């Protein structure tokens, strides 16, 4: 029996079904931030009441005066209320009831209102993510300033021990939760469809949902301060996390929520990259940034759910009296450590890969040379992604794990430095006899390479078990991961922002301020974290507020440098805010003379990205080759697309707009 196929019909912009015209309503009547807030408040109140109703009879709740069930249910209903207020469920419910979909209204006109709504345009989601990520990053940064203030003196305490641990935990968790999405969110969601020649992402609703969970997670994490904070740091080790007060629920819930957001974001991007590439966009022509996004998306989908599992188990141990992590009742503290680090290690490669992608994208443009060893770079990213699942026990070398495992994990951890080194091979080859233009994006890219070098080499020290016996849990580890994550990813992120802001907003950031920002940040960053290698090796553990007196000079140097680092980031804020709001220097063309496909369309891009689906003719790195074809044909002749689809037999033959 033949399956009857229906003719394909184009989706109207905004996700509506053709023929459905939405009612135009005033902005305060349409679901947006304000309705979401109302929903969240109502949801929290209901959840908290429900938790009190269910839990107040328990002896444990009565003696401890902490009702974790009320807090957790409050948060759960807060999220549901928030999403309901945003209108996330509207189309889902309409479809269940058989009514025509409304999309989310008419958003093609300009104005700022659409940035406060649940929207299906990936570019709007990208900008929402950008502002969100900057807010989260600066909040985390302020918390870091508080930490360094406390560490100015080993004996005089500015903060109480509870407050210090609160701040340490909030800083670490804010950064680790949010910075995984710092590139995927703003730059990945915005640029990937443009780079692969697509008009949309595969699952716009899922993409928007992944963004809208982040403000919830942010607020929930910060609310831990109101609840007395959590004493475990970002790693949340049980059984301390089971013993902790109400603030711990905020941590577990927020982190779990971000795990969901990460999984959704990765899922969407992976499908988009695999399925929505324009004709001619072969794997061998894919920009390196998209390769990074693809490998990162796989890591998201495979690793983030494990985190969700671990956080969920913490919550059930705390509320439902399970004993997953309690030794005496048959659980094990090692279970948590393994679950957490099984996610935690791919997490750090989630942070590193987009950095690699951005710098590999930037350096060909500013050296005017093709990317050296394209296949090696892509292989490196895949190697890192795959191997990252086989190394997590190196966080547990001293924990009392099976001693036979340690040479194995030492080997795999050392091995992972081989694909990481490929990125340097590619950079060195690209720089060979190049024509470097030291603009702000290029400076940040080079800064990333220098910082990640120190971070990566210190990682080799940590992978060696005897050396790790001294360095584990000390400031050496702190310096290592700040070099790789902040020195690597964040420098690359800023480079990406300077590079792509003309594309995203049609506005160029002030170049002079950009250079000042880079140099102050680079010098302050190295001045802050380089001495910490020594501090750690000389015996100062992490997360302590008292340390040996002879380390005070180094700690003071580091704290002052950290304040300067904060100051350099204020220069960025100043530059960003003034350039986008006040000066607004228009830049609509291709200011960097890049061959990237995303630069061949106007800036900012029109709503549907490309008027016609382009046909990609060559790779984006063909600099210096006079015989190279242009990167794509943006107005393919009629029948080119149709001819490509003719064999599929769906009957769609127009070349104007039907998507591959």
């Amino acid at each position, binding site marked *: 029996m033949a399956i009857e196929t229906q003719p394909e019909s184009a989706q109207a912009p905004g996700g509506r079904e053709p023929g459905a015209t939405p009612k135009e309503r005033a902005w305060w009547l349409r679901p947006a931030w304000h309705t979401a807030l109302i929903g969240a408040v109502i949801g929290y109140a209901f959840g908290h009441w429900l938790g009190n109703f269910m839990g107040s009879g328990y002896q444990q709740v009565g003696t401890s005066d902490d009702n974790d069930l009320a807090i957790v249910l409050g948060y759960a209903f807060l999220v549901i209320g928030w999403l309901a207020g945003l209108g996330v469920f509207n189309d889902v419910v309409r479809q269940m009831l058989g009514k025509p979909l409304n999309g989310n209204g008419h958003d093609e006109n300009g104005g700022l209102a659409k940035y406060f709504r649940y929207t299906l345009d990936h570019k709007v989601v990208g900008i929402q993510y950008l502002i969100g990520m900057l807010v989260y990053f600066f909040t985390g940064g302020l918390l870091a300033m508080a930490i360094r203030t406390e560490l100015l003196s080993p004996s005089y305490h500015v903060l109480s021990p509870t407050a210090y641990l609160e701040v340490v935990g909030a800083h670490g968790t804010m950064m680790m939760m949010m910075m995984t999405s710092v590139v995927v969110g703003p730059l990945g969601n915005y640029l990937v469809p443009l780079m692969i020649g697509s008009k949309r992402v595969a699952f716009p609703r899922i993409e928007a949902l992944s963004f809208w969970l982040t403000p919830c997670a942010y607020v929930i994490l910060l609310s831990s301060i109101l609840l007395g904070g959590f004493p475990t740091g970002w790693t949340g080790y049980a059984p301390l996390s089971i013993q902790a007060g109400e603030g711990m629920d905020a941590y577990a819930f927020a982190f779990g929520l971000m795990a969901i957001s990460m999984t959704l974001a990765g899922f969407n991007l992976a499908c988009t990259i695999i399925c929505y590439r324009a004709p001619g966009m072969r794997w061998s022509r894919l920009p390196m940034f998209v390769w990074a996004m693809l490998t990162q998306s796989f890591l998201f989908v495979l690793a983030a759910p494990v985190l969700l599992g671990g956080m969920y188990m913490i919550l059930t141990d705390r509320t439902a009296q399970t004993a997953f992590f309690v030794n005496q009742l048959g659980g094990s503290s090692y279970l948590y450590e393994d679950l957490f680090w099984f996610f935690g290690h791919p997490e750090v490669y989630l942070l590193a890969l987009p950095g690699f992608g951005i710098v590999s994208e930037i350096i060909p443009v500013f050296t005017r040379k093709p990317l050296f060893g*394209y296949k090696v770079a892509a292989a490196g990213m895949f190697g890192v992604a795959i191997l990252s699942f086989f190394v997590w026990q190196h966080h547990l070398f001293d924990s009392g794990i099976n001693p036979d495992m340690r040479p194995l994990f030492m080997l795999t951890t050392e091995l992972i430095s081989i694909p990481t080194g490929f990125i340097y091979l590619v950079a060195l080859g690209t720089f060979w006899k190049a024509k470097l233009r030291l603009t702000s994006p290029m400076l940040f890219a080079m800064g990333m390479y220098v910082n990640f070098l120190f971070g990566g080499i210190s990682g080799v020290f940590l992978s060696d078990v005897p050396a790790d016996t001294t360095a584990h849990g000390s400031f050496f580890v702190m310096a290592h991961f700040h070099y790789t994550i902040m020195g690597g990813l964040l420098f690359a992120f800023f480079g990406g922002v300077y590079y792509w802001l003309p594309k995203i907003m049609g506005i160029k950031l002030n170049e002079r301020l950009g250079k000042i920002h880079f140099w102050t940040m680079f010098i302050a960053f190295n001045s802050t974290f380089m001495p910490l290698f020594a501090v750690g090796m000389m015996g100062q553990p992490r997360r302590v507020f008292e340390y040996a007196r002879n380390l005070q000079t180094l700690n003071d140097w580091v704290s002052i440098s950290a304040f300067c680092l904060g100051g350099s980031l204020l220069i960025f804020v100043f530059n960003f805010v003034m350039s986008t709001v006040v000066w607004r220097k228009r830049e609509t063309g291709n200011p960097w003379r890049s061959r990237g496909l995303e630069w061949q369309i106007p800036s900012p891009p029109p709503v549907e990205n490309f008027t016609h689906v382009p046909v990609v003719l060559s790779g984006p790195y063909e600099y210096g080759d006079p015989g190279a074809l242009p990167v794509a044909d943006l107005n393919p002749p009629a029948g080119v697309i149709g001819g490509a689809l003719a064999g599929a037999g769906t009957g769609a033959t127009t070349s104007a707009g039907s998507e591959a």
Partner: protein
Amino acid sequence: MAAEASNPATPPAGSTGGRRDGLWLLITWVVLSIVGCLLVALVWGPHMPPGAQSSSAQHQQFDITVLGVIATPVVIGVLLYFGWAIAFWRQKPGDETDAAPIHGNTKIQATWITVTSAIVLGLAVFGTVELIGPAGAGAGEGPQPIWKPAGTVTASDTSWVPGTSNILQVQVIAQQWAFTYRYPQFGGFETTDLVLPVNEPVQFNVTSLDVIHDFWAYQLGVKADANPGVNNVAYTTPKHTGGFTVRCDELCGIWHGAMYNYGKVVSVSDFMSWARSTETQLASVTKLLPPYALTYDPTTLKLGKVNQELGLTGAGGGFYNPADPEQP
């Protein structure tokens, strides 16, 4: 699709005005690396952390020095190359053309992959050797350790005589928020002082009574996590007398930062007299302690009559339902 055709890496020599970048880079790199490696190995090496107070610390010091010597040429190489690029390979103002279209060089790529793999595998072998040789290098090996100091046995945990193959055992009990040390071979007394004899191998049995802590004796190069209900064994042999610092290295709650104490390594005779006098001094408390065991479960205790009538357990808390068999 010609992106991967291997082109020669260097354009004709005349194109850069005669400067032989490759050769000069190589020479500069080699010279700087040799200087750097010598500085690291000979000048910095003897002062590398964690010092030389014990066998594991000495081996770790050696390890870190070797890693430093191998890292030095890598760091110098990359930084030198970047500096060279910034100095010599800049785009001249007004020049809008592109540079040479070099997509790759199979020979260079293959050399890089081979050399990095060789270094990395060599380091893995080196690390394994350095882990096994010095009896686990001071790291916690879990309840079934496999790398023990040569020539030692755990023959008796009720008495210890210096100079025999029976290893000295010290149990480190971590609790929120202090370390206590139990010497089973001296009657099982428990004290907050950690005193060790010089040149005698010692076995640390590290365990916890509540949450995860970490016993880090910095100058002895020993680090072992203390997990509740688990015995984590680490070995070392102190080589010089003197003091050392013990810190908790795993976040264990509010006073984690204040959970430290000082220990000392003394001569064997001083140690024996300290141990015997402390054993007598603390006899009244040793009677109250549970019998020496590798792990302790505070819930499975026989409590007195009034405590039982009050419904108290050995562990406090009452986190779980009172009907549960265990009350952690």
